C-alpha cells in the first residue's frame, strides 16, 4: 500500500553516474497529445463500424487534513487540491482497433510537486485473433496481491497522488501480445523513462530532506532516454492464473544520495534486471495469492515476496453485505537493510461490500512490522452519491514507527482525506 523514498541508502558510485537537469517530460508531450486529439474527431469519422468518439471523465476536489503538527518546516496541516481527468475513446474495425486518450491535471494548494500534469493514456490498439499490438502511452498492471505490488513494474508510480503506489504515470511503449493456446506472451519495448514524483518542500508524507527530482542520477548513459525491455508470459490453467515476467532497464524505485549542501535527496536510478512470478488460485471461498521477485543491479541480488489469501463471507448475517478477510505476508531478504518498510511484515485487512445501490465499500488494513512492531493502518471507503458523484474517504495512520524504519519521516503524518468526484 505504501511506497516512499528510503533516505538511508546513498549512491555508492559503483557506476558511471550522469546528472540530468530539469527534463520535464510531460509538458511538451501533453501539447502534442492535445493537438492530436483536436484533429481526431475529424480524421476518424469516416472509418467503419464502432462506437463514435466519446468523451467521458471526472473532476475531483480533495481535502487532506493531518492530525499532528508538521515535522518539517514549510509543511502545512490542511491541503486542498483539485484534479481533472477527461477521457476520449473511439473504436472501429468492429472493435478490433481503438484509440484512447486520457490526460490528467492536478493543482494543489501548497505542494508545487503535487501540482502536475500527465498523459495517462494516448494509445492505439489493434487486435487480431492471435496477436494484439498496443502502441503509445499506456498503463499496464501486473500482479495479484493487495498490500503491495512487487511484480508490477512497467509504469512509474505517481507518488504525489497517493502513497499507496496505485497511481501511475503513463509509460511510452510498444507492446506486442502473442495470443496462443499456451497463453499470452507480451513483449514490451519501453522507450523513455518516467521519473518518480515526490512531494515538494511544502508537501506532507515526505522525507526529512525533500527529493530534488530535477537532479536525478541515472546509471544509463543516455539518462531517461534509455529504452527498457520487458517480457511476460501469462496463462490461465483451470483455477490458476499464472504470470512470469522479466524486466531489463531503469529501476522504477530509486536509491537516494544527499546533495552537496545537504539540503535535498537526489534519486539514483540504476539499471536492473528483475524477474517476477505471480500466482493466483481459487479454492472454494478462498483466493490464494503470491507475488515473488528477484532483482539484480540495485543492491546485491535480492528477493522479495508477498503472499496471502482473501476469504469472502457472502451475505453476512442474512444481509446483502459481504465481508472479506485479507491477510498477506510481506518479505524482503535484505532484512533491515532493505529500502522498503516491508521486509518482514504481516497485513491483516477486511473488505466490507454493502452491495447497495450506492455501491458502498470499506477496505481497512493493518500492516505490522514483525521486527520493530511499527504499525501502518489504512482505511479506504467509498460511496456513490446520486448517479454521477462519488465520495471517497481515506484514513492512514502510522504508529510505533522506529527511527531505523524508512517510514520514520512519516511518523506524524496521520491523515484523513476526503475526495468528491463528479463523473461526466
Amino acid at each position, binding site marked *: 500500500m505504501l511506497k516512499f523514498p528510503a533516505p538511508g541508502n546513498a549512491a555508492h558510485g559503483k557506476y558511471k553516474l550522469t546528472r540530468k537537469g530539469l527534463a520535464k517530460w510531460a509538458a511538451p508531450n501533453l501539447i502534442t497529445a492535445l493537438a492530436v486529439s483536436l484533429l481526431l474527431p475529424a480524421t476518424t469519422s469516416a472509418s467503419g463500424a464502432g*462506437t463514435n468518439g466519446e468523451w*467521458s471523465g*471526472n473532476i475531483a476536489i480533495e481535502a487532506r487534513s493531518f492530525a499532528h503538527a508538521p515535522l518539517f518546516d514549510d509543511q502545512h496541516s490542511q491541503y486542498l487540491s483539485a484534479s481533472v481527468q477527461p477521457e476520449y*475513446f473511439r*473504436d472501429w474495425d468492429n472493435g478490433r482497433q*481503438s484509440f484512447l486518450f486520457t490526460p490528467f491535471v492536478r493543482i494543489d494548494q501548497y505542494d508545487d510537486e503535487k501540482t502536475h500534469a500527465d498523459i495517462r493514456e494516448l494509445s492505439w*490498439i489493434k*487486435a487480431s*485473433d492471435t496477436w*494484439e499490438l498496443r502502441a503509445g502511452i499506456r*498503463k*499496464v*498492471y501486473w*500482479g*495479484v496481491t493487495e498490500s503491495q505490488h512487487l511484480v508490477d513494474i512497467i509504469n512509474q508510480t505517481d507518488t504525489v497522488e497517493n502513497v499507496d503506489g*496505485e497511481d501511475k504515470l503513463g509509460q511510452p511503449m510498444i507492446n506486442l*501480445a502473442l*495470443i496462443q493456446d499456451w497463453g*499470452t506472451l507480451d513483449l514490451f519495448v519501453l522507450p523513455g523513462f518516467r521519473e518518480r514524483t515526490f512531494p515538494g518542500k511544502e508537501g506532507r508524507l515526505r522525507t526529512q530532506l525533500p527529493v530534488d527530482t530535477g537532479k536525478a542520477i541515472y546509471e544509463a548513459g543516455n539518462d531517461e532516454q534509455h529504452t527498457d525491455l520487458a517480457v511476460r508470459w*501469462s496463462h*490461465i490453467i483451470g*483455477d490458476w*492464473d499464472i504470470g512470469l515476467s522479466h524486466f531489463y532497464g531503469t529501476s522504477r524505485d530509486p536509491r537516494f544520495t544527499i546533495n552537496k549542501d545537504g539540503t535535498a535527496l537526489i534519486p539514483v536510478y540504476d539499471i536492473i534486471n528483475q524477474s517476477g512470478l505471480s500466482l*493466483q488460485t*481459487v479454492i*472454494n*471461498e*478462498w*483466493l490464494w495469492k503470491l507475488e515473488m521477485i528477484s532483482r539484480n543491479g540495485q543492491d546485491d541480488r535480492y528477493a522479495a515476496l508477498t503472499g496471502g489469501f*482473501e476469504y*469472502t463471507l*457472502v*451475505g453476512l448475517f*442474512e444481509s*446483502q453485505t*459481504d465481508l472479506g478477510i485479507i491477510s498477506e505476508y510481506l518479505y524482503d531478504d535484505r532484512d533491515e537493510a532493505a529500502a522498503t518498510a516491508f521486509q518482514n511484515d504481516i497485513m491483516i485487512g477486511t473488505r466490507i461490500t454493502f*452491495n*447497495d*445501490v*450506492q*455501491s458502498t465499500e470499506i477496505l481497512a488494513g493493518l500492516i505490522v512490522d514483525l521486527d520493530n512492531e511499527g504499525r501502518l493502518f489504512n482505511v479506504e471507503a467509498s460511496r*456513490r452519491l446520486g*448517479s*454521477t458523484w*462519488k465520495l471517497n474517504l481515506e484514513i492512514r495512520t502510522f504508529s510505533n514507527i522506529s527511527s531505523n524504519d524508512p517510514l520514520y519521516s512519516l511518523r506524524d503524518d496521520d491523515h484523513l482525506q476526503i475526495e468528491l*468526484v463528479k*463523473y*461526466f
Partner: protein
Amino acid sequence: MKKRILLLALLTLPQLNAWAETPEKKGLAIAIEADKRDTGWQDQQSELKMILRNRQGQETQRDIRNRQLEVIDDGDKALSIFDSPRDVKGTAFLSYTHSKAPDDQWLFLPALKRVKRISSNNKSGPFMGSEFAYEDITSQEVDKYTYKWLNDEAYEGSDAFVMERYPAYKHSGYTKQVAWIDKKMYQPLKIVFYDRKGDKLKTLTYYDYKQYLDTFWRADRMEMINHITNKSTTLLWSDYKFRNGFSERDFDQNTLKRAR
C-alpha cells in the same frame, strides 16, 4: 381378500411405473427439452438497461452491454461491460460458467487497469445493487438444478408446466424455485424464489418474448420483486444480435482488458 388386493397391486405397480414417469423425471425432461430448444444460437450480444427501485419507488439506472458465447457440453462464457453509473464506466465482468464445477469469474477495473479474479461463492450476492443475484443472471445449465414437476396449468392465457427446481450448486441463496414454463416456447413465464429458510423471497416475471432466428425466444422485459424489502428491479433487453462470429478469443483476458 387381503391376498387379492396384494396380487392386484403387484400386477398393476410395474405397469404404472412404466406408464407414468415420476414428477422428478418429468421435471428433468422439461429442463432438458428447454435446454435443447435453446441450443445452437452460437453467440449473442444484447444491451441491458437495469432500473432499480427502492421501497419509496425512487429509481436508479444501470446500463450494461452483454456478449455471450455458447459452449457445448459446459456452461457459456459471458462478458458484461458497464456504461453507467459513470463511476464504473468501463468496468467489465467476465465469467466462464460451468455445469458442475464452480464458475470462473474476473472483474476488470479500468482505473487500475487491473484484472481481479473473484471467488464464485458470491452466487447469492446482489448483482450491481439490484434484486437480481449473480445466480439469477448467469447461464442456466441443466445440471445446476434438480427438478420436480408439480402440475400443468394455464398462466396468463398460456399453457404452462409448473415445476420446482432445487439448486445443486454450492452457495445458493435459495432452497427452491417454482417456475411456470410456457409449453410452446419452453421458456419461463414466472419464477418464484424461496430463501434459505424456505420463505417466499422474490418473484421474477417475464414479459414480451420475441423469437430470433425463428428459433430462440428472448424476453424483452423482466420484473423482479423482492417481497421482503419491497424493492424491485426491471431489466429491459434490447438490440439482440445472434451469430456475430464470436470466438473464445473474444472472451479471454486480453479482450477483457480492452473491453470498453
